[in-house]
């Protein structure tokens, strides 16, 4: 491009987030004096409609061909400003963003002069880099209108049915012999008071009947390659191996209640878990008159420091069913904090208390001790130890991640957290998405959830999946690595270092990178000994220009 460089710099006050520390007017004056800068303006909120309109107007009025915004973090706001560039008629990648909020006004709020100087440096670097920006185009690729749902518990089945109801085809795989997940072993679901088996049988029947759903049990996921709209999946089912192409994937692999080996004298007979109690309730095989339930058995302790969300309600529900069967049963629930959030749960807790269930709090430093036929507990309100008779002790253990969570996370290249629950893209606003496009999450695989919550998330994940499935093609921007074939010496370095297994050797014997698959991490670019791999948006030229600008202060 031979056209003259015309750079516009837009500096955001972010209310007082930035302007409270930095002298914005001073920065504007400074930016105006930088090479190729035609205009520099301040905005109260560059992200507000007024701010983006100001960018578009300035591009037109000043015939700008590069835009630099000095504001907050590109993580949240870069897409917005890129879109504004596009609307103003310039390629969205002729845009550079400087973070003068997190990097200047926030961290150096007590040293205004240094913050001001740093903001100036960063803007100067960005302007220098902007001179070497190149337009980047988007790629298009076809979407396979098919979904892979992994796991056939209540979450997986609900997702599969929701997608089928919207006219999309689904492949549902289940590692166990039978579909149904955890619910197969449960007694009844509160507050709906439905038998779990009924709920599950109904869903299984619907899945089996649905022409749009193909299901596979005893199926193990083995390999997933590709990208949103175009995943290749391989799974085995007994001795058979299957491969298929899908557009999106829903992870509904569930969780499992902790087996409390070594906790509170657990023996599976007189000291059992809530799940074991539910099996007994199903069979109406309970004779105990004095029952003690212990909450947080294996949860909220240093080795498993999370609250499993649903166990309090499971205990309360089972107390009420126990009271139904054994009218004169004495039931004590020993708890740390009762998690009866919301309307229905709190109502159920009240109902249990009205039914005569006694709730006694225990402190983590004085946990209950299960002895032969009784439970010793320090009663904080009475200020002394008491003994409770216990024909049966029921431990409320947390839902933990499945053993294969790690391997599934590796196969799908999606993250898990410290407790091995799958990690969503954003805790608040993207609870059902992964950062990796085209893969979604619901149910216990994400975090312990009630049947209702898991159903909600499953429908939600289906909705997220439908966004991709509703389009014949998807677009991807070209911020990816590309090989300059004439420089490639076929040394295989890129193939070894790519964490996503993207590069391959093409028919001409040179490395090639499929742009739809490349995640743009840049590792191969840095590692390639022949410097044959280029990353357009962060080229060597751009980085050098920025560095030289920094040193030239």
């Amino acid at each position, binding site marked *: 491009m031979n056209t003259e460089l015309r750079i516009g710099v837009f500096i955001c006050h972010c209310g007082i987030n930035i302007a409270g520390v930095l002298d914005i007017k001073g920065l504007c004056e400074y930016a105006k004096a930088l090479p190729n800068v035609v205009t520099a303006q301040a905005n109260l909120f560059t992200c507000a409609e007024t701010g983006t309109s100001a960018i578009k107007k300035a591009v037109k009025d000043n015939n700008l061909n590069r835009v630099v915004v000095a504001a907050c973090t590109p993580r949240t*706001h870069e897409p917005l400003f890129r879109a504004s560039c596009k609307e103003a008629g310039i390629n969205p990648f002729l845009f550079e963003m400087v973070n003068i909020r997190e990097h200047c006004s926030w961290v150096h709020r007590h040293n205004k002069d240094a913050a001001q100087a740093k903001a100036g440096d960063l803007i100067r670097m960005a302007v220098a880099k902007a001179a070497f920006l190149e337009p980047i185009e988007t790629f298009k690729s076809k979407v396979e209108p098919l979904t892979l749902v992994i796991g056939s518990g209540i979450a997986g089945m609900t997702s599969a049915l929701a997608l089928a109801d919207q006219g999309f085809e689904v492949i549902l795989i289940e590692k166990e012999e039978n579909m149904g997940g955890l619910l197969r072993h449960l007694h009844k679901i509160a507050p709906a008071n439905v038998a779990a088996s009924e709920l599950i049988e109904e869903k299984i029947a619907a899945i089996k009947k649905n022409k749009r759903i193909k299901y596979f049990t005893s199926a193990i996921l083995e390999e997933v390659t590709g990208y949103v709209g175009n995943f290749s999946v391989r799974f085995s089912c007994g001795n058979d191996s299957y491969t298929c192409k899908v557009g999106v994937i829903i992870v509904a692999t569930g969780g499992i209640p902790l087996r409390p080996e070594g906790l509170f004298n657990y023996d599976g007979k007189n000291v059992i878990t809530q799940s074991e109690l539910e099996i007994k309730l199903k069979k109406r095989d309970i004779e105990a008159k004095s029952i003690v339930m212990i909450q947080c058995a294996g949860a909220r302790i240093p080795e498993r420091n999370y609250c499993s969300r649903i166990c309090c309600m499971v205990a309360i529900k089972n107390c009420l069913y126990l009271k139904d069967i054994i009218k004169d049963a004495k039931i004590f629930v020993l708890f740390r904090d009762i*998690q009866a959030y919301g309307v229905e749960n*709190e109502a159920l807790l009240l109902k249990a208390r009205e039914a005569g269930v006694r709730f006694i709090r225990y402190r983590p430093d004085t946990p209950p001790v299960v002895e032969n036929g009784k439970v010793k507990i320090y009663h*904080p309100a009475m200020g002394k130890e008491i003994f409770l008779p216990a024909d049966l002790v029921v431990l409320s253990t947390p839902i933990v991640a499945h053993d294969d969570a790690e391997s599934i996370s590796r196969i799908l290249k999606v993250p898990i957290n410290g407790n091995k629950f799958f990690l969503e893209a954003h*805790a608040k*606003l993207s609870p059902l998405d992964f950062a990796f496009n085209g893969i979604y999450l619901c149910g216990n695989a994400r975090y312990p959830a009630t049947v209702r*919550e898991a159903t909600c998330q499953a*429908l939600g994940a289906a*909705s997220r999946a439908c966004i991709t499935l509703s389009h014949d093609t998807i677009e991807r921007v070209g911020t990816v690595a590309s090989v300059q074939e004439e420089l490639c010496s076929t040394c295989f370095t890129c193939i070894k270092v790519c964490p996503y297994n993207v590069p391959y050797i093409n028919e001409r014997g040179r490395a090639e990178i499929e742009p739809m698959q490349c995640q743009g991490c840049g590792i191969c670019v840095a590692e390639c000994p022949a410097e044959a791999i280029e990353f357009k948006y962060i080229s060597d030229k751009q980085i050098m220009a920025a560095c030289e600008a920094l040193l030239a202060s």
Partner: protein
Amino acid sequence: MSKDVLVIGGGIAGIQACLDLADQGITVYLLERLPSIGGKMAQLDKTFPTNDCSICIMGPKLFEVERHPNTHLLTYSEVEAVDGEAGNFMVKIKKKARYIDEDKCTACGLCAEKCPVIVPDQFNMGLGTRRAIYKYFPQGIPSVYTIDDSVCRVFQGKKCKICAKICEAEAIDYEQKDIVFELNVGAIIVATGFEVFDPSDIKSYGYGTIADVITALEFERLLNASGPTRGHLERPSSLNIKAEIKQTEKKIKKAKARLKSLEKKNQGSTDEARKTLAALDERLSGLKAKEAALGDVKDIAFVQCVGSRDLRYNAHCCSYGCMHSVKEAIVSTEHGSEIRSTIFFTDMRAYGKEFHEYFLRGGAEYGIQFVRGRVAEINQDDHGRPVIWCEDMDARKVKKLPFDLIVLATACVPSKGIEKLANIMGFDSDQSGFVKTDPNKPTTTSAKGIFVCGCANGPMDIPSSVSMASAAASMAAQTVKGLG
């Protein structure tokens, strides 16, 4: 028949449902009662458990709703009537007059600068002020101003019209009328959110009579950088004194001018004027001494379950109160390293993903004190400081502790308009007044083709609202596609 969807409520739940549907290629109308979308989340300072700035993560979503080719924003609008059935609803909508031409207004803000009418600002929970012509909040979408006809001088029959004179875009239109029109949609999503319980009902907590007893949402605005104090943590009593000082200073200026003019004219005695001035001066120094004595906020108390889990008011739990108090206590330390927080709670409900870890961090890293016990009463000591009376269940002792500021974690109650909407649309409510759903279909109401998400269905946190919004979108999409 229609393949379009109407979403009622422009909070985070409504926005998410709207965007999910629009991204699937479905035409969506997003209706909001207030002048701007954003809802309660836009009023929050930060969000737990990541301490993300609330409006910073929400802002791009607001903008996306406006820019999306498949969405139609109906702000400052209300539903008047609904007829028809799933697949074919006729919805009568009233769009209230803003007295501003939305296409012409550039939101430059000059009008509000010059507007002479100052009233309490609803977005800032009445802690700050706005003008009669105003933008609901800085990042508000659509980015246009609105004239509040209940306070604007023109609508009180007085002379003014300053805004029309100053507006270069010629966007002011005092003659604008409410518009009533009909919309044909195939499915409706109710995402009308919740209200904050008014704690002045609980007389023993002193809210409304003791200045430094405030609600959590008020506290969020006090912490916020674009809030009434620009993010400086100040308590209402000191804000009141500051306002009084400002007023007194104004009066002194006037009194001085009067005295000067009397002296100049040399007519009659100036004794009276001198006396007034002296009295004002004395008042000012008294106020300044009072302000200095108040000092900075150091001790903050958070009172949980205010109007929640209390059979006198609301039996239900607000679901998010424990976490927002932990968050506010953590964030407070960023406003002053000497700030100490105490949380008085019933059960610590840190049941969400990473919540328990966040709660533990609050104690270990930020020094938050947790006292298990329900607060019985809040009154004042001799210096006017609020005092909490509470039984500490762990220490088994009744405690009486003074604080600089007391923040009430107020109950989550159904939004005011929900009863009317239930009547218009024919869906049932639950025992607490929230929209009732099918136990096995979590977003399905008793009215076919009408779905619910977010706090309209009951108290829930943001990730639950967002998940449920996507779920409701899925059900609405099924309905309009006519397959399910």
